[in-house]
């Protein structure tokens, strides 16, 4: 059985800027909540690069697993409940949200997932670093900090 990760919108959008979606789906179960799906659909309506990223994920909406959680206006709150219940880690680039989780659940950044693919020899170091660089060029300064410092994972 494939290991599972719960993804928030920020992580999905970051990873959607890479060419790794197929590999992530092949190797891991992608868990999201209703709110995260709504957020992806909302971003998909835009005209920017994030909309392209959201569209890529929505193509796999039949494969992505939608899990039930108490409705919340904040996607991470729903995911937090799912992660606690299912005992699975969350993938998120939302710094504010992670400060709320503290040590209550396991969580990693989107760049960690790229590192995981490299660590399991699914992709080369060069491809991993290229993917992180791609994420960096598409995201804002605060999100960039994750992909900029993510390079230390490969030291």
């Amino acid at each position, binding site marked *: 059985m494939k290991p599972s990760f719960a993804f928030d919108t920020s992580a999905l959008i970051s990873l959607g800027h890479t060419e790794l979606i197929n590999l992530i789906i092949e190797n891991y179960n992608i868990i999201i909540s209703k709110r995260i799906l709504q957020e992806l659909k909302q971003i998909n309506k835009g005209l920017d690069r994030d909309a392209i990223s959201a569209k890529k994920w929505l193509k796999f909406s039949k494969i992505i697993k939608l899990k039930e959680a108490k409705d919340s206006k904040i996607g991470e709150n729903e995911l937090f409940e799912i992660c606690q219940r299912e005992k699975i880690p969350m993938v998120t680039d939302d710094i504010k949200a992670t400060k709320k989780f503290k040590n209550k659940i396991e*969580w*990693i950044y989107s*760049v960690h997932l790229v590192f995981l693919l490299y660590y399991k020899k699914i992709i080369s170091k060069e491809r991993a670093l290229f993917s992180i660089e791609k994420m960096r060029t598409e995201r804002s300064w605060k999100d960039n900090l994750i992909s900029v410092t993510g390079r230390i994972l490969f030291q």
Partner: protein
Amino acid sequence: MSTQVNVRLDDDLLNEIDSISKVLHVSRTEWLRMKIALAVKDDALKLSESIALEYAKGRISEKELRDLLGTDADDIIYIVKHMKRGKKYIEEMVGKGKL
């Protein structure tokens, strides 16, 4: 407050700038001012990213990071701390065959 700066430009470059500003319906000065502001913003961002990476690699201290980036340093320190924790988590879980 603003200060006038005199810059000498090649005629060819100036002609190109004039063509662009004419199409955009802005003055040459306004176009140049906007381009310089964009270049400064872009360079400042690149510099901040380089500083963040230097800290992540352990080449500058927390104090130096704070002196250089002010309040943004807090986020960088937090991100780097959890970057290392997350790496350790992945290595452990892969080692246990759970990922």
